[in-house]
């Protein structure tokens, strides 16, 4: 498999747990240096994909290359260059934060700059002397972030990196990830919080029921989504022809003076059709990434129901 300048390449990745098909042929490419968001609802296959990349689980079919290496053939070499934050972060309860991080340092052959570890902990307001068992979910997440970043990895695989963090700490983690990217690292993170992906990612993939359904820049996803448009006309009109424009549906109208439309995809056709009307005002509601996401999700439900 040619991987060139790709940090992650997955082709036809499939994985089942008994009768449950978690991945049904995931195809994915992430370029080196990208900040890549992996979006999907719970159970869509985000965690399973990430765990396949680390050789924690073995796919039933498909090929994977991480930083040009096959994780199944050379898992240690792959993991040396990766920082991983699991979605379900669990650590040894009997240790203190520093003891846990020292153990991780041992596992990395003691090649960790502890000055940098303390700097990361300070930025996240994390007390290294605290016992793990006494930490809140948010503080545990901070330990997870520190251990993922502490060896300055080439590739960060983060499964819901800001789960449990307060908004200030979320912003700090975003800054850390952008800094890592600026230093040349690739950041691949999963999330079901669409605003997070929209804020952080250069590129986004949406996974639904074990298949990648869309891969684009966050702004491109917006342009593909459903928008709601309110139009005020200067005099009463017949809005029916507007409903015949490709992708447009008239949702409601008020005496031909005010029309509420829904448009799926580009607005070009509607704008051209409106040239024949006495338009007083147009108000376009920008879709949130939540709506984009739901559009894909609803599409799936409709398919299943049919």
């Amino acid at each position, binding site marked *: 498999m040619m991987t060139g300048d790709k940090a992650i390449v997955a082709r036809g990745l499939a994985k089942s747990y008994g009768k449950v098909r978690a991945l049904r042929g995931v195809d994915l490419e992430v370029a080196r240096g990208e900040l890549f968001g992996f979006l999907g609802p719970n159970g869509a296959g985000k965690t399973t994909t990430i765990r396949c990349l680390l050789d924690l689980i073995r796919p039933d079919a498909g090929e994977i290359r991480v930083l040009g290496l096959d994780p199944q053939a050379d898992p240690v070499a792959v993991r040396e260059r990766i920082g991983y934050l699991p979605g379900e972060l669990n650590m040894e309860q009997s240790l203190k934060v520093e003891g846990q991080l020292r153990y991780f340092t041992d*596992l990395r052959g003691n090649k960790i700059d502890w000055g940098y570890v303390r700097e990361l902990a300070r930025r996240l307001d994390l007390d290294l002397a605290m016992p793990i068992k006494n930490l809140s979910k948010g503080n545990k997440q901070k330990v997870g972030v520190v251990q993922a970043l502490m060896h300055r990895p080439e590739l960060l695989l983060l499964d819901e990196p800001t789960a449990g963090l307060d908004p200030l700490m979320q912003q700090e983690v975003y800054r850390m990830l952008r800094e890592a990217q600026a230093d040349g690292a690739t950041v691949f993170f999963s999330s079901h919080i669409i605003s997070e992906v929209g804020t952080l990612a250069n590129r986004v993939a949406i996974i639904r029921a074990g298949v990648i359904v869309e891969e684009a820049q966050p702004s491109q996803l917006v342009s593909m989504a459903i928008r709601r448009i309110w139009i005020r006309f200067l005099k009463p009109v017949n809005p029916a022809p507007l409903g015949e424009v490709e992708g447009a549906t008239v949702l409601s109208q008020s005496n031909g003076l005010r029309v509420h439309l829904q448009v799926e995809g580009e607005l070009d056709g509607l704008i051209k059709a409106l040239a024949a009307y006495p338009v007083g005002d147009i108000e376009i509601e920008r879709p949130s990434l939540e709506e984009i996401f739901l559009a894909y999700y609803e599409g799936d439900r409709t398919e299943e129901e049919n």
Partner: protein
Amino acid sequence: MLAELKHTLLRKRGQMIGWAIGIAAYGVLMVSMFDSIVGIAGFAEMMESYPEDIAAFFGGLSQITTPKGYLDVYYFNYMTVIIGIFTVSLGAGLLVNDEEKGVLDLVMSYPVSRTALFWGRVLGFLAVTALVLLVGWLSWVLPAQGTEMDLTWIEFLRPFAPLFAQVVLFGTLALLLSLVLPSARMAGMLAGGLLVGNYLLIGLSNLNEDLKAFIEYTPLYYYQGGKAIDGLNWGWLGGQLAVALVFSLLAWWRFQQRDIRVGGEGGWNLPALSRLVRRSARQA
């Protein structure tokens, strides 16, 4: 591998210290009682007068007033079960406890191969077991200096070798089962059940000749106990260690093949009893 060995010793230190204290206290108590027990007038005769069935269950009580017989009956006869329960629980949870707690997921994302992780932990398991037995040996050999137990330190040490082999055998069996069965608890229960069952079977075989042919196929049949004071049966000892090695190799192979679980996956997908009952009720 060394990081995992160190980590296993650190994590298990509480368990190890607890067991060592218990084993040491028992050893010291039994040594201090030796002179008094054998000094009781008519003690040997009393033992001889025990019902044959009871004496047979313990493999005979005729030598109980000798250091060898005393050690055999009061220590090595059932220490396989006592320390065996410890090693079974240690073996069953060696990898799978961390997996069930979701800790292994993160550990395995570090640059440590499955082989290094596995053997690092197995070495830790062996070291913890050896340290507990070392304390057990010291608890006999040190206080025995002031008693009539005229055994040398090497004679005290010898029966600990088959005890070590036996408990390691059941511990590695538990480790293997934990990587095959859906949970560490199930593996521990099964391996512990086999150990206790084997112990009872050996005792009962002294009462029932028909069982003799069967017990030859069980590990405890090849356990010397206190009789090893006179000399080790190297064939038996080697055989037990070889079986433990085979269990370990099978467990290692299985660990190489399987997915690291974080909960929810795996299991046998057997329908829950309650679901079956509900379904039958609906059909009725």
